[in-house]
């Protein structure tokens, strides 16, 4: 199992190595994509193989894999695979159009692989200090992706992202320190004192005052990475300015990595100080994020910003679900994490195709998508209905579970408020995306630039469409039937909490 964990991390680095030794962008892209697919296979294998076994421990507590980490590994590996395949087409089209130089394309693949590998590694470690190190490093690697285009606006977004996230993660490190302070009365072996399993096992003996502070700091700190309001301000800029496959990685993988860290702190805090305090914290931040996300979705502008605010909303929903708690709430939160990740990957990847064809990221500049590029237009429409929680897609099921958990756990006011906000989100979001999909396209675009479009070849064109199709199929499956293995993995993860 240790070897498998190693393969998962190393997989995406194939693209990095290929680009670093000087392979042209196309080859580096294919190397990265195949590496990411190997990682995905290994993650599925690990999840299934890990189901009925004790957690994997190794390297003096640095490696720790239980069902929760396996579940998040699967989510991130899936998104990485989709985005890595999508990168091949998007980057080759940008290079062919002269928007990016060959050097920039190679830089992209270098940092893409490092970014993915760091996120996967942060899910595999049991050491809180190392978790900080890896998450902060993944911030830096992804900041390079955000600023890749080198325009003033993308540099500005990258600056905002790196400074806000670094501050946030540093605050999370302060939270980690307070968690250790709270454990200082225990006489654990030094290097075990900072690992999840030991802290969790001794959570009832932790000093409650420091533990409360630690949880609050961790939610604020890692919440900055998750995009919980009011620490979300970097998120729309970074998502809008990054190349589309990188936006998919940010929204669907990075945010979940932060959420994973919060869930770990939550598990310890719940045992240490009781469920009320963490519930209040998560409900406040969660609802605030949903409200802010929905309010900013009303504005019609850059469609990638729209998707980004939708991520803020969904991360809020997951936080609310964690706050509702109970088996239903946690099940809903984890299922929603996976569903949202796939749906957002689909949306950002198809938005990449849109911005390549229309050469704009403004929603009002895009008309008649279904007529110009039926496949992408269809994926965008289906993806947006999926992300808004319409049946028969997976998010309908997970949002239903979360609302049910709310009715079971709290007064009916909170889940009703959540439903109302979801309805507003539906109207705001669908108004923009249906406007993009329908309407009369500009004549020049309607005539079409040829079969391959902006892509230098059929294979590249295929890589731009295929991940969105695969993602939509997965969402449909998850909406109709949750595979037994996955369901068991989620149930096991709840047991871990």
């Amino acid at each position, binding site marked *: 199992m240790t070897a498998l964990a190693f393969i998962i991390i190393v997989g995406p680095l194939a693209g990095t190595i290929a680009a670093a030794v000087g392979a042209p962008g196309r080859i580096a892209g294919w190397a990265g994509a195949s590496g990411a697919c190997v990682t995905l296979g290994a993650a599925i294998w690990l999840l299934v193989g890990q189901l009925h076994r004790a957690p994997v421990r190794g390297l003096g507590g640095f490696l720790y894999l239980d069902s929760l980490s396996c579940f998040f590994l699967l989510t991130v590996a899936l998104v990485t695979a989709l985005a890595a395949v999508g990168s091949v087409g998007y980057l080759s089209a940008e290079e062919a159009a002269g928007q990016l130089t060959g050097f920039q394309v190679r830089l992209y693949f270098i940092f893409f692989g490092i970014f993915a590998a760091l996120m996967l590694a942060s899910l595999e470690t049991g050491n809180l200090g190392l978790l900080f190190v890896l998450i902060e490093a993944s911030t830096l690697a992804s900041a390079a992706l955000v600023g890749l285009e080198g325009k003033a*606006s993308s*540099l500005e977004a990258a*600056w905002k992202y*790196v*400074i806000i996230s670094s501050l946030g993660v540093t605050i999370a490190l302060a939270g980690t320190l307070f968690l250790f*302070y709270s454990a200082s009365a225990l006489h654990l072996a*030094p290097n075990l004192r*900072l690992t999840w399993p030991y802290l969790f096992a001794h959570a009832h003996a932790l000093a409650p005052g420091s533990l409360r502070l630690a949880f609050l700091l961790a939610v604020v700190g890692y919440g900055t990475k998750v995009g919980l309001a009011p620490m979300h301000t970097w998120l729309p800029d970074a998502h809008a300015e990054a190349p589309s496959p990188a936006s998919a990685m940010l929204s669907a993988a990075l945010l979940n990595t932060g959420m994973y860290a919060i869930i770990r702190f939550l598990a310890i805090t719940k045992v240490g100080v009781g469920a009320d305090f963490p519930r209040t914290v998560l409900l406040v931040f969660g609802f605030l994020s949903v409200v802010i996300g929905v309010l900013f979705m009303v504005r019609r502008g850059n469609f990638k910003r729209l998707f980004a605010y939708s991520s803020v909303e969904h991360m809020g929903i997951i936080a609310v679900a964690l706050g509702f708690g109970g088996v239903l709430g946690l099940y809903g939160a984890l299922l929603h994490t996976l569903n949202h990740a796939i749906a957002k990957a689909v949306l950002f990847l198809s938005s990449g195709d849109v911005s390549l064809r229309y050469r704009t990221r403004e929603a009002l500049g895009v008309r008649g998508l279904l007529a110009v590029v039926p496949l992408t237009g269809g994926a965008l429409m289906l993806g947006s209905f999926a992300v808004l929680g319409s049946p028969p897609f997976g998010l309908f099921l997970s949002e239903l579970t979360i609302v049910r958990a709310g009715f079971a756990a709290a007064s009916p006011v909170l889940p009703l408020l959540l439903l109302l906000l979801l309805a507003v989100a539906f109207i705001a979001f669908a108004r923009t995306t249906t406007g993009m999909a329908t309407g009369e396209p500009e004549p020049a675009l309607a005539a079409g630039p040829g079969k391959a479009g902006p892509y230098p070849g059929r294979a590249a064109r295929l890589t731009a469409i295929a991940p969105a199709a695969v993602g939509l199929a997965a969402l449909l499956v998850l909406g109709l039937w949750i595979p037994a293995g996955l369901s068991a993995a989620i149930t096991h993860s709840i047991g871990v909490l």
Partner: protein
Amino acid sequence: MQSLSATSMAGILLDLSGVLILLLAFACLGSKLFNRYVAYYGAQSIVLSFAAAVAAYAFASPELWILAVATLAIKGIAIPVAARRLLIRRLDLKRDAALSTGLSTSLIVGGGLTAFAYLVTRPQLLPHGVVAAAVVPLSTAVILLGALAMVVRRHTVAQLIGWLIVENGVFLGAITLVATFPFIVEAGIFLDIVAGVLIMLVFVSGLTRQLASASAPELRELHG
């Protein structure tokens, strides 16, 4: 571990360095010149490396000695020199005009934050067994002051220095935990800071080249 009680020589030295680090954070908050920001940050890092050396001596930990030397070399010397050469001199930065509050206001708020830090993390509230518990409120206060500097200063270089001060505050808190922080983690935190500063240097100089002035109020293109 006993050697770090508040009355021992090492304990007193550690507390003193903590106080000095806090004062230097205040000095940075109260100045307006880019040169001074960097100078105060450098001085703060040197005191920090002294504190790490004291802890290293008290714990007889060779790993902490390495960290003390690395702090001195990287945070105390390399980063200030690089900031001066690559940012302040090349971009010809002198006086920071992009402050959102007056200096006296930010100093008063800083005083309030320090009191707050003490209120929340005073030694009596901490669980027993925390080594050098008096340093904890000091480090919390330094974290808050650094964050305050990032909020009231809108110039990118000033914000970068603010983040570095926050980082120093966390590091000060971490020294009291040496017995539990494995070396790999400390070294990783260090690497992150170095890589972070490098990447921020790239962004700041790129932005400045494109905007002529990288002060945050001019970063208006993205909003909403």
